[in-house]
């Protein structure tokens, strides 16, 4: 079954990770709608610049992109009919702050400590991705003009924390991090290589090369793209169903999806201290320990399951250097935990194993489930976003640096929230009780947790315990957004959404 996506109708950020196309800079704006008529007019104006998912040729690539999404209260402010509004799912209606007990946003991640902008009512999310900061700024100026032209219809909200202790910026900037020579890197502030194993679904291009390790695992050990409906409303999903989160009428939902936006502060000082301290008692190099936290080596993203110690990593690096581009990609993504069910190579609590266990939740019991990834295929998300801020002092936690995390999925509750709650902050599916994942877990300072790094079964060696884990990531803001299709945007802007 092949499916051609209506690329001209789907917003580009759903299908493309702009970062992979040299869009190194991004700016995120949040707006409030003060007047329905004028607000819709503003949406109409912005829609003319909204970037679709249409394929880019070398000479047709824009220098900047624009995408737009709405919170539930934003859709109310745009005066969508009640019958349409009632079709949206509970978690979207509640918004991210209302879901803090589900997400584990407690302690320093509590919404009361978020950037000031999140104390306001946010209606619209607008993103600009650019090939340069100039391109971003040019598009930003254009948007400011539209805001002005709206004549009080919409207000650009301020209140983002910035680099120089500002707490009232009108936008959130994000950027790739650069190496010493000023070349862009795929790193984030803890030094990990990010964005390698994103989900792949039916209808995306160049599937053959990308689907390995990123789609769904079949019984015969092959990889197939996930069903489109896992990521786009109005399409059949993995349950042979249309996503149940779609509002009416069909055209409002079709080719749209939901987006999770989270500003995640990285406690770099705590991370570095923690890594140093733990590496003193860890039987292996500091880099191996860091790799076991995440499931990938920091320098090049090598999967720990295929490079489980320093010696095998050296071997892996040699093969990697010798491989061509396609071969390198394959080495990064094409793996399972089938030969590592016990977690001796890649710990069961490693970040990438927790968020995408591949076939390992079958625990080596062949044919226990319909498919090896039966418990996984409905829990996948598309990861978007970029780092923000600069680390000025790597021994300190304060400042303004982290990741703008965005996740796209058809069902926030079933996909993003489930992974965050059940697999990051809890581990019964992994038979590890309440042990939280090291990097993203909402570790409790008063009662810090631990994880187990398993070793070879029957080796007589004790497993390694990583304990006293500090809170390494803190939420600093965010919300849930509906990302409509371009058709739906026009309907919303025109005030002609009719669920009858």
């Amino acid at each position, binding site marked *: 079954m092949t499916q051609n996506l209506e690329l001209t109708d789907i917003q580009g950020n759903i299908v493309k990770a702009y970062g992979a196309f040299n869009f190194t800079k991004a700016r995120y704006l949040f707006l409030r709608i003060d007047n329905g008529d004028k607000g819709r007019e503003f949406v109409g104006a912005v829609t003319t610049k909204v970037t679709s998912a249409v394929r880019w040729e070398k000479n047709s690539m824009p220098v900047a992109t624009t995408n737009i999404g709405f919170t539930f209260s934003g859709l109310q402010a745009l005066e969508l009919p009640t019958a349409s509004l009632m079709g949206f799912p509970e978690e979207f209606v509640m918004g991210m702050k209302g879901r803090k007990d589900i997400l584990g946003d407690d302690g320093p991640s509590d919404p009361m400590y978020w950037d000031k902008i999140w104390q306001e009512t946010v209606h619209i999310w607008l993103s600009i991705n650019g090939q340069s900061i100039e391109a971003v700024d040019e598009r930003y100026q254009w948007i400011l003009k539209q805001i002005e032209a709206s004549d009080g219809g919409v207000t650009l909200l301020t209140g983002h924390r910035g680099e120089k202790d500002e707490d009232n910026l009108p936008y959130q900037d994000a950027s790739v991090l650069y190496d010493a020579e000023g070349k862009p890197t795929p790193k984030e502030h803890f030094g990990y290589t990010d964005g390698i194993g994103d989900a792949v679904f039916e209808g995306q291009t160049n599937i053959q090369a990308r689907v390995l390790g990123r789609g769904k695992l079949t019984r015969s050990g092959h990889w197939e793209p996930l069903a489109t409906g896992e990521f786009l409303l109005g399409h059949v999903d993995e349950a042979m169903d249309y996503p149940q989160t779609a509002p009416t009428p069909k055209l409002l939902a079709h080719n749209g999806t939901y987006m999770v936006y989270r500003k995640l502060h990285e406690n770099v000082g705590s991370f570095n201290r923690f890594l140093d301290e733990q590496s003193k008692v860890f039987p292996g190099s500091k880099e191996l320990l860091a790799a076991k936290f995440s499931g990938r080596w920091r320098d090049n993203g090598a999967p720990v399951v295929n490079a489980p110690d320093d010696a095998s990593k050296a071997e892996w690096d040699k093969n990697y250097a010798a491989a061509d581009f396609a071969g390198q990609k394959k080495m990064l993504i094409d793996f399972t935990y089938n030969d590592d069910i016990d977690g001796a190579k890649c710990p069961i609590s490693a970040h990438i194993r927790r968020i995408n266990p591949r076939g390992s939740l079958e625990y080596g019991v062949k044919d226990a489930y319909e498919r090896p990834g039966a418990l996984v295929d409905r829990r996948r998300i598309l990861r978007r976003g970029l780092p923000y801020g600069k680390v000025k002092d790597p021994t300190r936690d304060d400042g303004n640096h982290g990741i703008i995390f965005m996740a796209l999925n058809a069902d926030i509750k079933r996909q993003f929230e489930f992974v965050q709650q059940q697999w990051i902050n809890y581990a019964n599916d992994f038979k590890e009780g309440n042990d939280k994942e090291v990097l993203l877990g909402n570790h409790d300072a008063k009662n810090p947790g*631990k994880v187990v790094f398993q070793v070879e079964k029957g080796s007589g060696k004790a497993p390694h315990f990583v304990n006293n884990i500090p809170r390494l990531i803190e939420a600093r803001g965010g919300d849930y957004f509906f990302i409509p299709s371009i058709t739906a945007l026009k309907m919303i802007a025109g005030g002609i959404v009719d669920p009858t």
Partner: protein
Amino acid sequence: MATKSGNATALTVLSPIKNGIMDDLSFADITRERCLRLPIHEKSPIARVPNTYLARLFVLDDVVYESLPGSDSVFNFSDITSFFSDTARKDALPRKDRLQSKYLVFSSNFYGDLDAYLTGVWEKWAYDDYGIQRDVRYIWEHCVAFDQVNDCSDFIGYIKKCQLDASLFFNGSTDDSLQEQLKSLYLKQEFTRFVVAHQGKSAAEIQQDFKEFVKRVQPENLNGPSWQPGQSMP
């Protein structure tokens, strides 16, 4: 006979509730309210009943009419006849069933034999109901013929009359006694903390501390330190 899986037993009880009202409330609603008001976790009366793993109470008001679409047969002859006969079409609709009584449902998973267990229910079931002490009779009070229950043996006889066998009892856990399960959970928690705290320590120190540890947790003493039934906080 209740249904067993090893030493684990599944007890399913449907006790008919008297039709009728008292003080403007039906007996069924009074019974339901009493169930809803029960204190939870360690304060639940069931926490005092020896060997209960998991148990529940609710009132079955009626059965449900199957109004949803769905096809339960490989082939429905009526699918064809319905085209030609309106009577056949109507006959093919699911039947409407109504229960003549509402039932108090008590479903328990426990360790051991039914008689011993029900003796525990009769003797130990007790709780504080907003300041008033209640026993098990308070929940079953308005069930049909429960007024003839005067002692433990009556109670066991009564429950057995309300009891239904399970066709399949799936045990996804263990069939050890509750004390054994709770002691194991306690040891798991305590030993985990011990091994984490002793990572990297010298052999002599671990050995010495392990002796102290064993003395403290008393692994084989089920009456020693353990988790309490229904314990909801570490």
